[in-house]
């Protein structure tokens, strides 16, 4: 033992740097103190590594779930700001705004809280001041409304807001909202549709519904660094937009708008013409459709009755919401005759110059079929195809279509796509209905009625499409109402491509077109003549099927279809008026004048030059 100690001591004395007089005890004590601090420092380094590098998820019931300190830091130091992104506008083809987002206000009243400058104010006084500002209700009326729950007014314009604020009354609460506004009210409702007024802003009809993905802008969420400031005892957040990431641009939305093919001016005139015609004959409903035969765009689509999308919630009759020109089927009647002529010519069963026997009356499968003017005119004898169209002869048509075998005829009708769904850019299109193929082939009566446009049904839109094919040389164009996305200068950014299918030879459609011109020049369509302009057309007066499935003798659907101008067809126009009242209600008297008005409007707005010198009477 002693030896060992002695050796240790000697080692110590041999240490070169150690001061001579420093005892082993002193060294130990000093090292002990230093070592204690060193240990603490090492422990803290481990603790810091655990906090800063490992940073485990905090397991405590009051701590945020599954978060470590770094995640907690992120969530408390940043805030997500959801900015309101306005829905894109809808414009017509001349950039008139048909639908837009605008700011409006809801006014809430809390009569229990009516205080001005720390003094209570009577409800009567407030009703009086509100009435003078709003000018919609009498003070007494307002007073009654004060008690009701919910907002006193919705959709208050921004202009009244400063006046209401100037009253400086507690208990009047204005809340800012964004709402969809349709400046032209019902003028294009059947195409534009509407969106819900509530905060969901759910699109409900028309282009608003089908083009939702083009109309909705991507929502903007800003992730901003944030801190807080104590100001006058209130904690206020401070955002640090300077620290936004480059990918988060503040104004990343574009100025694109959805452009429709509609022409508001034409639409307005067409609606006026339709309304005037319907008023005259007290008709149940009506529609005017115009199609640009070269690209399938629809500059006019008017359905009556319609609705104001700004007040969609006030309508009791839900049928106003449907665009019946595309949703409802009807038997086209005589307006289908030119289509049948085109089918027969294309099949080669008749020549354009053929003479057809018109007996005025015939019996098919025990059914007696007459011409509409059989009583006055009787049998006409051999007449030409243009004459058949001019007189709208049912028997003549039956005799033309007889030449074609019934299965062939059926297949030709099918090829027109009557039964196929038309992919329109507004919702609700109903495909047409033909008879059963076997029935049609076996029974003569079905083919006979189909020859003059009865016994099957289609939508007015489909009929217009078929006539457009006559106008453009046999191309079945897909009708469309959306042109694409355009910017404020009208440059198109996204265009929906047009689609077409060849169904007839252009020589044949040219022949049919000229035949239809004679209808306006000399036949039942005389009403729609416009001096100096070449117009082709065809009237239609079809009986409606009543609820028992039989033809109703009193309910008629009158229509007129026109193609214009004949020398270089551009527009196909269809007017349909449902259930006009009175004795002289035919396509020629009810629908043709409407079409004439529409053509006159188009001529005026589009500046279409006359094709010949007007004849002098």
């Amino acid at each position: 033992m002693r030896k060992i100690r002695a050796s240790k001591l000697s080692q110590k004395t041999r240490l070169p740097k150690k001061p001579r007089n420093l005892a082993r005890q002193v060294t130990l004590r000093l090292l002990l103190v230093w070592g204690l601090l060193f240990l603490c420092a090492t422990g803290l380094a481990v603790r810091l590594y655990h906090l800063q590098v490992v940073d485990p998820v905090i397991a405590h019931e009051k701590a945020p779930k599954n978060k470590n300190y770094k995640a907690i830091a992120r969530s408390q130091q940043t805030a997500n700001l959801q900015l309101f992104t306005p829905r894109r506008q809808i414009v017509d083809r001349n950039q008139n705004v048909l639908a837009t987002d605008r700011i409006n206000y809801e006014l809430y009243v809390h009569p229990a809280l009516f205080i001005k400058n720390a003094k209570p104010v009577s409800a009567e006084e407030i009703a009086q001041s509100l009435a003078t500002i709003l000018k919609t209700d009498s003070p007494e009326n307002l007073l009654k409304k004060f008690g009701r729950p919910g907002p006193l007014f919705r959709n208050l314009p921004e202009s009244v807001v400063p006046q209401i604020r100037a009253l400086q009354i507690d208990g009047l609460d204005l809340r800012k909202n964004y709402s969809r506004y349709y400046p032209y009210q019902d003028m294009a409702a059947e195409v534009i549709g509407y969106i819900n007024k509530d905060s969901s802003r759910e699109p409900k009809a028309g282009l608003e519904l089908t083009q939702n993905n083009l109309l909705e802008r991507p929502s903007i969420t800003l992730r901003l660094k944030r801190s807080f400031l104590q100001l006058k005892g209130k904690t206020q957040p401070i955002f640090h937009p300077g620290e936004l990431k480059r990918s988060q641009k503040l104004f990343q939305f574009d100025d694109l708008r959805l452009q429709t093919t509609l022409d508001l001016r034409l639409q307005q005139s067409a609606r006026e013409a339709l309304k005037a015609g319907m008023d005259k004959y007290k008709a149940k409903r009506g529609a005017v459709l115009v199609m640009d035969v070269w690209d399938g765009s629809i500059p006019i689509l008017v359905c009556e009755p319609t609705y104001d999308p700004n007040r969609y919630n006030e309508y009791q009759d839900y049928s106003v919401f449907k665009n019946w020109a595309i949703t409802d089927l009807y038997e086209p009647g005589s307006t289908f005759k030119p289509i049948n002529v085109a089918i027969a010519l294309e099949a080669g069963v008749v020549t354009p110059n053929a003479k057809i026997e018109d007996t005025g009356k015939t019996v098919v499968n025990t059914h007696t079929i007459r011409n509409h003017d059989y009583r006055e005119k009787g049998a006409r004898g051999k007449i030409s195809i243009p004459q058949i169209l001019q007189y709208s002869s049912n028997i003549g048509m039956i005799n033309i279509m007889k030449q074609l075998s019934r299965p062939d005829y059926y297949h030709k009708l099918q090829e027109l796509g009557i039964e196929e769904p038309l992919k329109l850019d507004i919702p609700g299109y109903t495909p047409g209905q033909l008879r059963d193929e076997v029935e049609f082939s076996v029974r003569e009566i079905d083919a006979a009625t189909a020859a003059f446009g009865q016994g099957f049904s289609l939508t007015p839109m489909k009929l217009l499409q078929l006539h457009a094919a006559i106008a453009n040389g046999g191309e079945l164009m897909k009708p469309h109402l959306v042109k694409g996305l355009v910017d404020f200068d009208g440059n198109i950014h996204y265009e929906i491509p047009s689609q077409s299918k060849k169904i007839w030879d252009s020589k044949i459609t040219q022949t049919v077109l000229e035949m239809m011109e004679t209808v306006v020049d000399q036949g039942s369509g005389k009403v729609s003549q416009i001096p100096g302009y070449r117009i082709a057309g065809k009237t239609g007066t079809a009986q409606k099927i009543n609820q028992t499935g039989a033809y109703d003798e009193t309910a008629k659907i009158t229509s007129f279809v026109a193609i214009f101008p004949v020398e270089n067809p551009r527009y196909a126009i269809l007017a349909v008026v449902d259930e006009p009242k009175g004795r002289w209600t035919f396509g020629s008297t009810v629908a043709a004048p409407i079409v004439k008005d529409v053509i006159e409007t188009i001529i005026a707005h589009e500046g279409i030059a006359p094709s010949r010198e007007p004849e002098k009477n």
Partner: protein
Amino acid sequence: MLQYLKYLIPFINPQVRNWTWEARLLNWLTCIWLLVGLITLISASYPEGVIEHQDGFYILKRQLIGIIVGIIAFNIVTNKPLKETLKISPIMVLFLLLLIFLTTVPGIGKTVYGARRWIALGPFSLQPSELIKPFLVLQAAYLFARWKNLTWNIRGTWLAIFSLTLAGILIQPNLSTTALCGMSLWLIAVAAELPWPQLLSVSLGGLSVAGLSLWHNPYQWDRIVFFLEPWDDPQGKGYQLIQSLIAIASGGWSGSGLGLSQQKLSYLPIRSTDFIFSVYSEEFGFIGCLFLLLFIILYGTIALRVAFKSKSKIQRLVAIGVMVFLVGQSLINIAVATGSLPTTGLPFPFFSYGINSIVASLLLAGLLIRVAREGSKGKVLKLKIEQRT
């Protein structure tokens, strides 16, 4: 006039090149510590200054006043022989003890955060519990170095004065400073080779007094152990610590960069004083923290080397005392910020804002450097030559 100018020039006094290498190294390390602390303080206090004083550099300006005063004191202490400084220490201890008790007198003491620690002095305030630290080191060194040669009367008197000091700081209340001073005094005593039975009985006595106090006031215990589970009350008692932990953890490996702490903007309370380390660690990350810890340990190790080399026991104990106060206080501050010790208000030497704290820290550093200068016989000879010229 020129001879007084040296008191104003910090660290680059022309005499420095004649100092021992330990003294020179400590001189420069103190300078670096001060500068890094100042830079961190600018970063930590700028947003607070902007919000509360409409001047981002408000706190920096006040801190600079402290630094000027502190450097004058530092230069005086480093240039004065330790023996002479020791002569004034008993008077200073007693004077500051009196001031400590004055802070508890209503009307004289200034209450901040529910504690009377300050005596208002115009736009500034005096914190005697901070300023007493260097003199406690001196007095404890003086007492424990000559412990064997002193009668129990003198021993008892000074122990009583120390106890009174601790009690005075405790009733402010300032538990953390009390604990720091108590532990430091005890560690100086350990270094002074006092017999273990005496040391242990004193420490047991201290601990039992503390235990008794806690047993008497259980709410204090709750407060003290809250640091173990700050999430029990994340919006209340645990808020400060949680925010500090979030700041430290946000630093990650390399930190967010100087000036880029997010937590200092509003979330972290008392960010320029007690929790300044949290701002530092958010901005410099784990690497920065490791460097800071290594730096502190390097400082402590050189202080230990100075203690080994010093000629007299008093010098040795002063060196150890300074090491315990500067290094120990830094480590306690880091431990508080990282949730390793109860949340108490103890400034980080040379980092935290506080004129009294910076003066006390510079005085302590000055004492250590003085000891280092006197450590080598040869160098002291040079000093004498210098004094002749």
